[in-house]
């Protein structure tokens, strides 16, 4: 049963990782300009 301890902690850690990623993506202005970013990805550099 002690496996449950480890699993609970591990699941929380993974979830926290995603939370941190979410916060980082906001701070990095990734939700600021959807249209612009999607177009920029398709521009070809010559």
């Amino acid at each position, binding site marked *: 049963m002690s496996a*449950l301890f480890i699993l609970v902690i591990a699941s929380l850690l993974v979830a926290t990782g995603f939370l941190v990623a979410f916060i980082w993506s*906001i701070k990095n202005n990734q939700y600021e300009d959807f249209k612009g970013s999607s*177009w920029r990805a398709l521009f070809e550099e010559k």
Partner: protein
Amino acid sequence: MHKADDTAIECHHCGAHCQFGIVTFDNYPFCCEGCKLVYELLKNNDLCNYYALAQHPGLQQIKPSTKEKFAYLDDPQVQQKLIQFTDQTISLVEFYLPNVHCSSCMWLIEHLNRLDKGVLESRLNFGKKTVQIKFLNAETSIRKIVSLLSMIGYEPYISLDDVIHKEAKNSSLDKSKIFKLGIAGFCFGNIMMMSFPEYLSDSISTIEQHYTSLFRYINLLLSLPVFFYSASEFFITAWKGFQQRFLNIDAPIALAILITFSRSVYEIISHTGAGYLDSMSGIVFFMLVGRVLQERTQASISFHRNYTSYFPISVSIIKEEEVSTKQVSELRAGDRILLHSDEIAPADCIVKKGTAFIDYSFVSGESTPIRIKENELLYAGGKQISDTIELEVVKPIEQSYLTSLWNHFSFTKNKEEENKRISFIPVLSNYFSSILFAIAFLTAVYWYFVNPNFILPSVSAVLIVACPCALLLTSTFTNGIMMKLLSDHGLYLRDASVLEQLSKTNHIVFDKTGTLTHGHYLKKLSEYASLNDAQKSWIYSVALPSQHPMAKALCTYLGKQEVCPVSNWTEVIGAGIMATVAEKNIQIGSKGFINAKQDVTEANLWIAIDGEIVIAFESISQLRNDLPSLFSRLKNRFQFSLLSGDNEKDKALMQGIFPKEAILQFGQKPLDKLNFIEGLQAQSKRVLMIGDGLNDAGALQQSNVGITLSENINNFSPSCDAILDAKQFGQLPNLIKLARFSNTIIAITFFISILYNIIGIGISVQGKLNPMIAAILMPTSTISIILLTTGLSYWGAQHFFKATTT
């Protein structure tokens, strides 16, 4: 020059029909030299990809701007205000580019460094239409960059009043709300998961004691950021209200959160129960979702502008025979200034040299240009439409006639706060809180006599279950969705409080010029015979190149004609056009210009061929489409008024479309309009004002809801509560219906949430509320309410708009 049937050819750069002949370059057609020039520039710098990304992405270049226009950008004081960051070598500026509209625009602007080597990086935010440009101080300057941007068709909108900067800051503030939301969501989900064994613990007894307490302590740990960070704004607003001795809507919520949290902490630490942390974080999460949804506003639309946004930043000033630039805010009485064509007078002035043809439509709504002679007074806000004139400043802008309107007290009140104060939500929540506290008290009294041990659990359970979050959720979600639906149909609201006010209005006041009418059409006077085909094509060829509205109306009247070669074409601004076609001398213009002897009072456009008058027209204001049906659909609920800055020439026309009992007022100055609306409000009418110009600004501000009609929502419109896309004007009755429907939705969902509350309270007064029931009741009630309000809103939008679109 090519022939007339070439009009179907589209300019390679801007996509406009090549009406004025074709400029061919590189085997591509262009509508004007300006467009060709931009193409040439882009081609020389290997930027033709611009044309590959979207069809005809460019902007028409017909009006070249003057070189001196941006001279003020060399002024260090101006630069200081614009530059966001600078060191010895590099500077960073941000501009707002209203003309950005497609992926090609974005591509070109982000490749600015190929056109100007001094630019290090340019990055566009397409949603906000702002560009951040990093450049080398030694290689280029703000003036060069701005001139380049205007040359390729993206003239930045530069304003020194910091409205734009403030709005940019607001959006970064919103980020903290998203953080709070994200953290609340994370904690809510995990607390729910950790609580599952607890919910099922009655039936499954195998769960061991130390696991139970492990899960409980993890929950407690997870609830800390929810309580201290995510929920903080509820506590702050509740506390602020409390300090002003005012129970606002956040007070009962803050109380519910506080009680739930303390009771849960007590239960967990004393090992008496699992607490209600799942419910608490759920409440916080859903409340935050609702608020973020409601406050999500249009980033690129501005609702808070005053007259300074319209005025130039600086003007050309003459001092000891030399021309320099000076900031408008530093103008003093006695300064001599130059006003170029299409510039707006920044102060009350006396005309010293030149002929002034002033368009005051901006200030008064009067659309016919006025001629002002030398030594006569010209008011601030008038736009010069003929050549450059010399003026002497009489009163600086702060004391001018135009700005005296802004000193009126109606501009000092904050409409947003006012709307919130008179909204029905606080009233409802007041009743709600009172009833809730009464029930809690009665429960306490009951258990005091039956079993005093149950007082604390049952009273706290009542307060936990019956927090007014359902009420707030219904309003925030409905408002948020409605604002999105309305903006899909062309009505952009400043904030959610406008929605409720809009649904309460019962009197509509219209402005005339630009609102009910747009442009003119021509009516031939019966005294003259019709033109023959040759005459039609001569006149068409002469009128076509002119930008004057009357000339455009004339072309529309004539319909498409063959274009003949034209020579000696001259336009006398404010008077007329003349040219030679097929060896005939054609004159188009005012009575004085043609030298007409006949006296026909209604006529205001005359045409002469070889000195002989062939035809005369009366110009009639062009009404917007759907006006009669608009009135018939609105008249059950609304009374109408018309306030026009114009003279009475359109009175008969207006009487024809307005219902009989409507009040029609002409010759109204901005302050008259404001006072008229105040008068209506004194009769306890709730006024919806629909206007378009700066002359309506006072009325828009004074009215309960002020809507600005705009041909292009990214243009600048006066300060208002909402902006309506002019193309959607005919949809106004539907938009109002939809706004009113949102109240019905709130009422329905509120009723259902009360039912949930009765069930919840019914259980909790008996002291039977266990975490399992709380955990089921809370999310089901919340989610069902969210689904219901969303569904009803979309159904309403479909229902109201289907009737007219099919």
